[in-house]
């Protein structure tokens, strides 16, 4: 008995050490990102040492004052506007599509689901060029509206997770609502929606975050219209060869600022996020 206890104690000690080492490995780059954002020395690299010797707030203030080349506050606002609008549209699209495929029975259901499956397998970037020209056809190229449309337009294809969730809601609820005289629309709004908070949260979260982290779609659609850049495009520009010396520390400050809201959202909704993904999978 004693040797068993000793062994499990040793095993736990080993795990503690492993976890500590791993945690440090995962936190270090982020800590260093924050450190760099407060660094006083300019340039991408320090000359032969690692911990900065001068500290400053200037990298942050500069983002909001020196806006002639990189208009960070404007980009932040752009991204926020695009994220909020596309998140709203996309969430409705996903809700409707998932509900129709999960709960309603109609002639085109199977064919449509199959088409969605096939379309989803093309690499997303492949269609960007065509989208650009299509949007140009309507005179919307290089606008924020175009970005919103592109982020939310095809959202219906991402219905799998929410459909998986709807599938688990007992059909008896729908049937009794029907007997009580609810139309199908009322069943959707009064029965299904209130039960779906975790998966709606998950969808809102993922669609809201997408514009903050997307680079390719935005880069093709915006080309060089600096004023309508999103955060990701702008930050990437800061690291181009001619800018990186002056802007590297500001990039880090900008990155920290962009991470804070996303990190906050993520922490708050962490539980829903996991439930959203695993909800369908676990039940098989």
């Amino acid at each position, binding site marked *: 008995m004693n040797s068993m206890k000793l062994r499990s104690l040793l095993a736990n000690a080993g795990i503690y050490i492993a976890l500590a080492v791993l945690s440090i490995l995962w936190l270090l780059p982020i800590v260093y990102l924050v450190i760099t954002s407060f660094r006083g020395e300019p340039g991408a690299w320090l000359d032969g040492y690692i911990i900065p010797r001068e500290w400053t707030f200037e990298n942050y203030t500069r983002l909001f004052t020196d806006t002639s080349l990189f208009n960070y506050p404007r980009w932040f606002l752009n991204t926020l506007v695009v994220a909020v609008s596309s998140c709203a549209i996309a969430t409705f699209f996903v809700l409707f599509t998932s509900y129709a495929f999960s709960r309603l029975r109609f*002639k085109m259901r199977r064919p449509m689901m199959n088409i969605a499956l096939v379309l989803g397998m093309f690499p997303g970037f492949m269609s960007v060029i065509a989208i650009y020209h299509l949007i140009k056809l309507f005179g919307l190229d290089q606008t924020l509206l175009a970005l919103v449309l592109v982020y939310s337009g*095809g959202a219906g294809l991402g219905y799998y997770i929410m459909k998986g969730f709807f599938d688990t809601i007992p059909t008896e609820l729908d049937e009794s609502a029907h007997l009580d005289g609810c139309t199908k629309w009322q069943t959707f709004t009064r029965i299904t929606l209130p039960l779906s908070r975790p998966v709606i949260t998950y969808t809102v979260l993922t669609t809201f975050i997408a514009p903050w982290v997307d680079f390719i779609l935005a880069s093709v659609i915006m080309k060089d219209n600096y004023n309508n850049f999103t955060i990701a495009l702008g930050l990437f520009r800061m690291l181009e060869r001619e800018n990186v010396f002056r802007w590297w520390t500001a990039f880090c400050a900008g990155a920290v600022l962009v991470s804070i809201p996303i990190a906050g959202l993520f*922490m708050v909704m962490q539980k829903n996020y996991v439930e959203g993904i695993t909800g369908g999978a676990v039940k098989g």
Partner: protein
Amino acid sequence: MAEKQKQKKPRERDSVSLIHALTRGSWPTKTTALISGFGCLIYGQFARGLLYLAVQILTLAGFISFGWQYVRDFATLGTREMTSVLDPIYQIPINVPGDNSLQILLYSVFAFALLAAGLAVHLSAVKAAYAAETLIRSGKRPAGFRQDLRDLLDKNVHTTMLSLPVLGVAAFTALPIIFMILLAFTNFDRLHQPPGNLFTWVGMQNFTDMLSLNGVLGNTFIRILGWTLIWAVFATFLNYFFGMIVALMINKQGIRLKSLWRTCFVIAIAVPGFVTLLFMRQLLGDLGPINTLLQSDFMRALGFSPVQFLRDPGIARVTVIVVNLWIGIPYTMLITSGILMNIPADLFEAARIDGAGPVRQFRSITLPYMLAVTAPYLITQFIGNINNFNAIFFLTGGGPPSVDYYHAGKTDLLVTWLYSLTVTRGDYNLASVIGIITFLLSAAMGLIAFNITASAKKEETFR
């Protein structure tokens, strides 16, 4: 199975009703085949009939005024090249615009789609006319417009719900994909760029170029395909395996501060991926802090020397996989945690009584259980990694470049190659071919996945 049979019946009835409408229908129904909504108007469904008619008129007007000028050149993609003539007054050359192949192709696809949508509405008008006719014949009144509207929230609520999402998918996913597929059969490369030059149909030429193994292009393709698959396998399975081990360690009985450990990893997720990747690129650079550290007197004394993390072909490949682990493991940890706790505890109990150690338990219980439950997730991850643009683009940009390759580098995946071929080179035809092949790859994976999960469900070994 039951569902399949149920669905077959109405479809048959449906196609029959269209033929019936045209053979057995009354003259108003038959006239509807020419004038949309005519039958509905005659049978008292005025608003509905007018809507059908309006759709038909708008479709035809749109096609004639906008679509036709492009569709008529669809077969050739334009014949008049841009020319330059001397201005008679100022004696300077000015450009006379010719046909724009890109516009012809894109707008033709658009016009065809418009026509197809109009045709679908038109067919439904014929069916509606026939339905109204049969109702009247059996002594009933066809539904009025108000009833139609009410049905849109009840019996036909799927139409209401799906119309906008389907429109969105058609415009922003389906049409562009069709357009890009068509490009694969043209010679739209850097030498044939509209509006200056025309491009035209070349059949399977691009596919034979890409798949012939003796050319530079075919050679590049095969190597990049190989690396893409290697990358996807390593990125997916290493992430999965290590993520699960981290989850197991955190969730092990007797380990304290579980939420603290979890938070340490979750913080890494919360920082946007492109930020982490760009930052890592800087950290791993030749002059970056890691190499500075390796060059310090202390590390040198230990025998370390600087490493070209991103510039040496072999090391760069390892680097991108390792950095991707850094990004991916927290996700897997989060997702597997919940599932791991669902494994029936008595399985482990029984294994312990039989004398199985922790490694054996992991191999015989945890891993098979997890693989069975998370197979769909694993496959989505695999397909996602085949298309993992960010991890490569932000870290190495596909580099280090290789002279043996057709404008690609040693860490380029098919998607990043596709990106540089379009954005920096303008070889759209080749990019389309790559896109189609990537699609076939993903589709094959999806098919395998479907079969695996189907069989896993059938067995239900763990339930």
